[in-house]
């Protein structure tokens, strides 16, 4: 429990209005988009690095658990305050501090919404590449903590490939600068360590990001298949041909039906798989490349393949993909998103295995995934009010992660380990690997106040 005295001190630091303590308010910061729930003791809304630093120092002195939160779109329970304590809510630290188009860098605060940043950059003809499906609401701080991905990461890499530096508050409240605008900063790559550490090593208060000029042209194709296998083979064939598309996204039949109902994209309801292929870059040669891809699709028994005629058609295809999770929410009240990666060539076998697991536990499973990355997102559908079903869902989810690990993959592609996948960490890491990580945690946060009870089993 956070004592009244501490609440008073917090009020002194950030102002009385920016400390939320009521039953209603604390409950509202106890969830994210996963199935986990908890309740913090209070919520603090900082407005500057200095305020963050003073709050963290206070928590450190008092050994109070502390968790940084953006928009609460996390899918692994990483932003659920399992141990109570203080939620540091960053939505009001949402300033874009510097746009340096000549050096292709921006500096932002953690509360900036990913898509808001992109919209501002678009005015300068620039783009920040990572594009998690939640980008309309998810914040840069959350992207940083989870090392978020997204469809375009096939060509451009995940968040860590675009973060060059950061300002972070350590667990004792000290403020450090890691990395910078220049490349190849000397010393340990602490930036690399902090990105994807799920708020367990430090709290980021500013980040320096790489931006790029917007591609000259973009082409989005939709390929429809009668079997998942044909779709999977097409993915491998495109890459084997030396083409690096910006995205290779696949949706299976159940997802197609849900998306079609919600967005009327024009997917045929009886298709087994839809592949969204996007290429970007120079206008010259793009037509030829499109033809090459269409030819590869045909060789792999595509039923129909066509390119979006204009920006509106392209936007529609992407609205279907980005809204797929939500649309699936219409089929059953709840879903669990599994997030595993496998080597691309293992995709068909693993997908078949996923469907087997669905049958075994008598649970419908929809698949929508970053096929090019071998990053699967099986969505297990259920109704949380049915306790028995809920228990089966957790077992099935764990089994799917095990399946990915057994095929040489990993248990997380981009959603983090959080609360949900702590147990699965040992599927891919040995005891010594985990011990090395815990040593790092110990060095950064000896008191264990930063986002406790996450990533590792006790």
């Amino acid at each position, binding site marked *: 429990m956070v004592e009244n005295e501490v609440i008073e001190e917090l009020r002194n630091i950030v102002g009385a209005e920016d400390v*939320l303590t*009521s*039953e*209603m*308010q604390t*409950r*509202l*910061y106890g*969830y*994210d*988009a996963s199935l986990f729930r908890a309740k913090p003791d209070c919520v603090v*809304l900082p407005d500057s690095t200095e305020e963050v630093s003073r709050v963290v120092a206070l928590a450190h002195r008092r050994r109070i658990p502390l968790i940084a939160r953006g*928009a*609460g*779109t996390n899918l692994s329970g990483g932003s659920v305050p399992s141990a109570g304590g203080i939620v540091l809510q960053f*939505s*009001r630290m*949402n300033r874009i501090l510097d746009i340096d188009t000549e050096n292709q860098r921006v500096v932002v605060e953690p509360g900036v*919404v990913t*898509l808001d940043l992109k919209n501002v950059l678009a005015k300068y003809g620039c783009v920040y590449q990572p594009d998690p499906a*939640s980008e*309309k*609401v*998810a914040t840069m701080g959350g992207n940083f903590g989870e090392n978020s991905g997204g469809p375009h990461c096939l060509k451009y890499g995940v968040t860590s490939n675009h973060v060059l530096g950061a300002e972070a508050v350590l667990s004792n409240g000290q403020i450090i600068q890691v990395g910078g605008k220049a490349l190849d900063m000397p010393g340990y790559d602490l930036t690399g360590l902090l990105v994807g550490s799920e708020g367990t090593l430090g709290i980021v208060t500013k980040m320096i990001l790489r931006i790029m000029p917007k591609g000259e042209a973009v082409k989005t194709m939709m390929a429809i298949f009668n079997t998942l296998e044909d779709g999977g083979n097409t993915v491998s064939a495109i890459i084997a041909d030396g083409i690096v598309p910006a995205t290779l996204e696949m949706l299976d039949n159940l997802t197609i039906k849900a998306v079609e109902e*919600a*967005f009327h994209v024009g997917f045929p309801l009886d298709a087994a798989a839809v592949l969204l292929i996007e290429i970007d870059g120079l206008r010259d040669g793009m037509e030829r490349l499109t033809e090459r891809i269409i030819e590869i699709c045909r060789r792999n028994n595509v039923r129909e393949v066509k390119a979006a005629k204009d920006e509106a058609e392209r936007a529609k295809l992407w609205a279907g993909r980005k*809204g797929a*999770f*939500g*649309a699936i*929410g*219409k089929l059953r*009240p*709840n*879903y669990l998103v599994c997030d595993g990666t496998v080597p691309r060539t293992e995709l068909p076998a693993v997908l078949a295995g996923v469907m087997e697991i669905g049958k075994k536990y008598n649970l419908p499973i929809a698949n929508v995934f970053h096929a090019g990355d071998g990053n699967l997102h099986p969505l297990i559908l259920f*109704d*949380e*009010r049915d306790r028995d079903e809920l228990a089966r869902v957790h077992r099935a989810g764990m089994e799917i992660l095990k399946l990915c690990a057994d095929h040489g993959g990993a248990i997380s592609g981009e959603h983090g380990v959080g609360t949900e996948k702590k147990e699965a960490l040992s599927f891919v890491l040995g005891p010594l690997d985990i011990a090395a990580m815990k040593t790092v945690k110990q060095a950064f946060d000896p008191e264990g106040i930063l986002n406790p009870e996450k990533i590792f089993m006790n």
Partner: protein
Amino acid sequence: METNRVLSEQTSENIYHCIKCGLCLAHCPAYKEILLEEASPRGKVQISKFIAEGDLSLSEEVKETLFSTCLLCGSCVVNCPSGVHGAHLISGLRWRAVQKYGVDWRKKVLFQILSSGWMMSGSAWFARWARKGFGDFKFQAGALPLEKIPRMNDKPFSTTVSEVVESPGEAKARVLYFHGCATNYLYGGIGKAVVDVLPKMGVEVRIPKDQICCGLPIFLSGDRASSLNCIRKTLEIFNGKEADAIIVDCATCGAALKNEYPYLLQELRDLGEKVSEKEIAAAKDMAAKVKDVTVFIDEHKEWLPPLRKRESNLRVAYHDPCHLVKGQKVSAQPRNLLSSIPGVEYVEMASADACCGGGGAFQVEHAETSRKITKRKIDSINAVKVDAVATCCPGCNLTISAHLNGERPMEVLHPVQLLQRSLA
């Protein structure tokens, strides 16, 4: 089950379809300004869940949140990929909150007047009262500067027209006209335009007497009991009458008659209130005939006489009222009408479908948030440098007119008023 006592089963099912993805945060005008989870639709759906499951009590704080952080614009409803109807949850809980804590006295008096039709005889008295009652000694009704609230019509619109406005020649269609309070008391010009344009198209317009408030502002404020009077009276006046359509010139009234009546009556019946199946069936029958006036005109545009070219060009932008674009999924028809007027240069403004921040009583009671939302709208309008803004909702008209900052002279009009000018 506890759930059934707070919300009907049909409505509370929404709670369980929210997967907390948070996409609604990107579309909620109130959240964008307040940036607290309680202001987000997701937050309020979760509050509904906590309350329905008995984990949170319907405290004064919850009540305040339900009223101060939501304009019931419906943005979350149309943008929820899981189909969660946040607005129904919130208005249902507002009702429970009002049952527990009562209605603010000023609202109570206003609702009594609106739902009983007193205003018919006492509009001048009402104007004085409204200015005083909402004035708060600051000469400001919340976000609305009083001097910018238009003068009341000299006489209520309904007393200035006959019950039947015939078309010259044989009528191609007959419609009933629900004119709503705003036209009746504030924007008589809109009503005059409707009864001018439609007959010139060969449409006979009947204006049933004794119309009262549609009830929507009342039940969205949680006072469902008073709003039932409005619904029943409106059904009595309009349902079962021979007509090709029931036309409405106000987005809000249209949303009420078309969507909310059947839903609300069903919801009340499910919760054990005294509403009959017959009334629900009547509401559905009536709803099937309700059309926004711009939709009706667009459907029969070949009936329009030739439009005279305007003497000077007029750049016009259109603002989508929430209750039309989100509530009734109407966006193309008003634009079509505007574009069809010779001499009107139609310009699409950025975020034309974003809420204007008015929200009826919201701008009076929650001025700070309202002003911020309105500012975005005014910025969008100023950016396109138009001579006039058209919109199909007198509420939006009031809000936008009151905040236009005079960067250039600009009229705010109903599309039918512009049409009328080219028919004169």
